């Protein structure tokens, strides 16, 4: 829609999908949530805030109330912008994207679905019909940097999920690389720290040094560029700070019990 508005594209036809009821439903399927691609951010916040807290936090940072009433997670997936707010929360929960066509339905892990800036694994005849994601088993966070305090496209962002059920912490960088980037080394590092100290069981404190190192490793995973919104150096720095802070908040929440 943005490109249409800027007269950058003139598609032959535009199809309104807002009245396809199947796209606007969500429910559970084999223990996972199946969320229709046409669910708006407002509905994510209102209806899924307890089940998908990270995605709900990200949804709260999208645009203005008017945009949240209209914009959908499916649209965010289709645009595949590295700055898409819904993407890091989906990455850290290993979500799958459901693609439907007359040929049938297939599901693609979100990290494989997003191929490059504005490029996805969708075939021309396919429709993004839903995404599938497990309900949060532990605390989740989403934090986003913008030079103003609302209605801003991410300079960079970070999604984080603590998964006690599989004893993992996942972190995904937004808007500091060509696609969202999972910070695998940081994830491995913090999993090691938690295991070594038996923190899953003891729910003990994570040392400042461990949080700091986690942040550094997230910074190292970023592959940002400099553009009108921010410099590469700042993005690298900021995602590290966000990683350190969000892990601290999520871990404290875990310690407080679920």
């Amino acid at each position, binding site marked *: 829609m*943005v490109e249409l508005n800027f*007269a950058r594209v003139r598609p032959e036809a535009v199809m309104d999908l807002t009245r396809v009821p199947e796209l606007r439903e969500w429910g559970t399927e084999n223990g996972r949530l199946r969320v229709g691609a046409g669910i708006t951010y407002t509905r994510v916040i209102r209806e899924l805030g307890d089940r998908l807290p990270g995605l709900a936090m990200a949804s709260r940072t999208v645009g203005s109330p008017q945009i949240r009433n209209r914009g959908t997670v499916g649209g965010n997936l289709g645009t595949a912008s590295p700055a*898409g707010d819904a993407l890091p929360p989906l990455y850290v929960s290993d979500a799958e994207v459901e693609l439907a066509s007359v040929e049938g339905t297939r599901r693609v892990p979100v990290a494989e679905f997003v191929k490059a800036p504005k490029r996805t694994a969708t075939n021309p005849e396919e429709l993004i019909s839903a995404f599938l994601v497990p309900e949060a088993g532990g605390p989740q966070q989403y934090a986003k940097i913008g*030079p103003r305090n609302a209605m801003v496209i991410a300079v960079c962002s970070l999604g984080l999920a603590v998964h006690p059920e599989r004893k993992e912490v996942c972190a995904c960088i937004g808007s500091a690389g060509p696609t969202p980037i999972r910070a695998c080394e940081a994830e491995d590092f913090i999993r090691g720290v938690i295991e070594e100290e038996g923190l899953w069981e003891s729910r003990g404190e994570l040392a400042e040094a461990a949080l700091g190192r986690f942040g550094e490793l997230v910074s190292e995973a970023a592959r940002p560029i*400099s*553009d*009108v919104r921010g410099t590469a150096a700042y993005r690298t720095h*900021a995602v590290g700070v966000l990683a350190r802070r969000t892990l601290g908040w999520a871990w404290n929440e875990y310690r407080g019990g679920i």
Partner: protein
Amino acid sequence: MSQTTPTTPTRVGPGPTTWTPGKVGESDRRPDGVPKVTGEFEYSSDMRLDGMLWGATLRSPHPHAEIRQIDTSEAEDLPGVYAVLTHEDVPGRKVYGMEIPDQPVLAWEKVRYQGEPVAIVAADHPETARRALEKVHVEYGVLDPITDAEKAVQEDAPKLHLSGNVLRRIRILHGEGVGAAAKADVVVRGEYEVGMQDQAFLGPESGLAVPDGLGGVDLYISTQWLHIDQDQVAESLGMDPDQVRLTLSGVGGAFGGREDLSMQIHACMLALETERPVKMAYNREESFFGHVHRHPAKLRYEHGATRDGNLVYVKARLVFDGGAYASSSNAVCLNAATFACGPYEVPNAEIESHMLYTNNPPCGAMRGFGAVQACFAHEAQMDKLADELGLDPLDLRIKNALKPGDRFPFGQEVPPPAPVREILERVKVMPLPEEQEVMGRDLRGLPGGVSNVTHGEGVKRGVGYAVGFKNIGFSAGFDDYSTARVRLTVEDGEPLVEVHTAAAEVGQGLLMLQAQIARTELGVEKVSILPADTRVGSAGSTSASRQSYVTGAAVKLACEGVRERLFERAREELGEPPDGLSVEAGNVVRDGRTVVPLAELLDGDELEETCEYHHRETHPLDENGQGDVHLQYAFAAHRAVVEVDVELGLVRVVEIATAQDVGKIINPQALEGQIEGGIAQGLGLALMEEIQVKEGKVLNASFTDYLIPTILDMPTVKMEVLELADPEAPYGLKGVGEPPTIASTPAIVAALRDATGLELTRIPVRPEQLAGVSDGPPLPDEPTPGGAGYAEVGRLDGRRET
């Protein structure tokens, strides 16, 4: 798309607005307030007429290029296209401009900035018009752009205009100049930079031109000054001004950005060529190329003072990038020079103000007009000096505050009232906001807001002060006046005053002010404000915070004339001695006793007066930069409290406290709106608003990437308003629109320095600077994959490839 060919005829332009206003000094609600909020107000971009065509503009993708050839034939052949016009079709003067007519109506031989209009088309649908633009073939010979004002001034720089690259130079020598440096115990130096701010009005440039069938044209338009538009449009159409009639349509903000022409001549040319009404409405992106911006500036300062904190001298060199064309740069250069030292008693000064042509976007008028850039620098210098002297920054300012009877560095005596010390003392004693525990706060009360970047980590508070001032009204010898026609009549047995001026209501509240004056002076309940148009004499520009003063005075004068004739009539018909008569609640009264109802006295007649008010003469600067240049001075002081996440460089402005002298409050609610709005624009310049230009090309021509503050960025504003009457002004009032914008920016930056200990010499201050993260690699030329996918925004030539 929402735009379609119109099918229903609509009335063109607004009708009169009639209501029962408050009197002078009372809050009066805007009659257009509710329609604006509910979306029913007709802005200039909403106008439609049966059978109208849509105009569109082809703009240069290059900041500097020769035009070798323009081929319009393919565009002309497109079905639905009615006209394709170039510079060859401009019937009259091929250039326009308010101060210096140096800007082509449509470019020939050369383009000098990205976005310069080259051709215009009219078609039966906006999309057809857009496609026709793609079929106009312009052969350019691309030239290297001059994009640095400091380089434009060098001898070997290519000349952008016949007159060279220097648009204006002003030198002010005051006292012994820097010769007084020996008397200073302490000297501080600094270099400061101000980025290019945009007015960011919400209603893009738009208008409707309707041919009258007799060779003339009616233009319905958003502007700040109908008559200067009329003169320029007529000149370029080769017509008498009375063949080009302008009516003000709904204006969605101005802030200086509507002083220059945008689509006025183009729409009229297309309408006259096609003999059909032609509407032109820029979209948001085009709007960034359709108006001038605030001048970017580099400012070098040196302040000397005695050990006990008395200013000895100021040396300043101000360099402004005027962009490709003159616009109002001349006057901005003068203003900046005269305000370079701030509202302080400075016994010796040497000031140079340079304005240069470059191939950057043209810059011109914006709220604050030269005073903004200077204030950022002189206030940073005052803080630096206070630091060097170990003095409280506010006390240093109070110690050096200007007072009536002092001399400005440009020689003019400071007229009363000039309560600089008083407003500084007011902000000093206003209670500071309570410092609440940061941990566990609602996210909206923290830097980053709901973006959830901090729960209190890294947050430091800072407090900063600044004071600034601004001239009200046009200066330097300009015959600045306004015209008002006031008619007293009786409608349905009730007296009604009609006020007719050409003064542009651009959202500031002039509509109410005129009605309040009419009600106050003529004692009637009902007032009707007629649409502003060129059927009445010029009101001058809605800029320089001057309309309340100048048009206010003209309306008051015309009302007084009508009132005198009423009293005359009372004397003639009733034998009432004229002394001691007044008008109140629709009656002529004496000592609170009704002499005669106005309706009865008028007896079906109407009384009408048309008056011009010319303000006191001002004078240009002489060769030493001396002269009584300005009419009135308005002062405002600000205190900013900020909280900075020092690790991430994100900011929440907690509170702005301000004290401003307004002479007389005419409409308290409108005044609050001006103060808060001005502060919001000042906050924007401090923290986020900048048109980023690289090699002469704009990188962020959209509200996606040109950020202005939202309501979540705006703090609570505490205000103290002083009413010290100016004896020369109507009701003693002072202009109020600009002062809030001037010192709010440096106050916020001073607070940021207080919180972080950083020097912060450039605005807007970016998160990178506050977080102390070095710049990293320069901007890449490739589209930015880190962006949201709109990297093509601002690349006008990108349209050709889609």
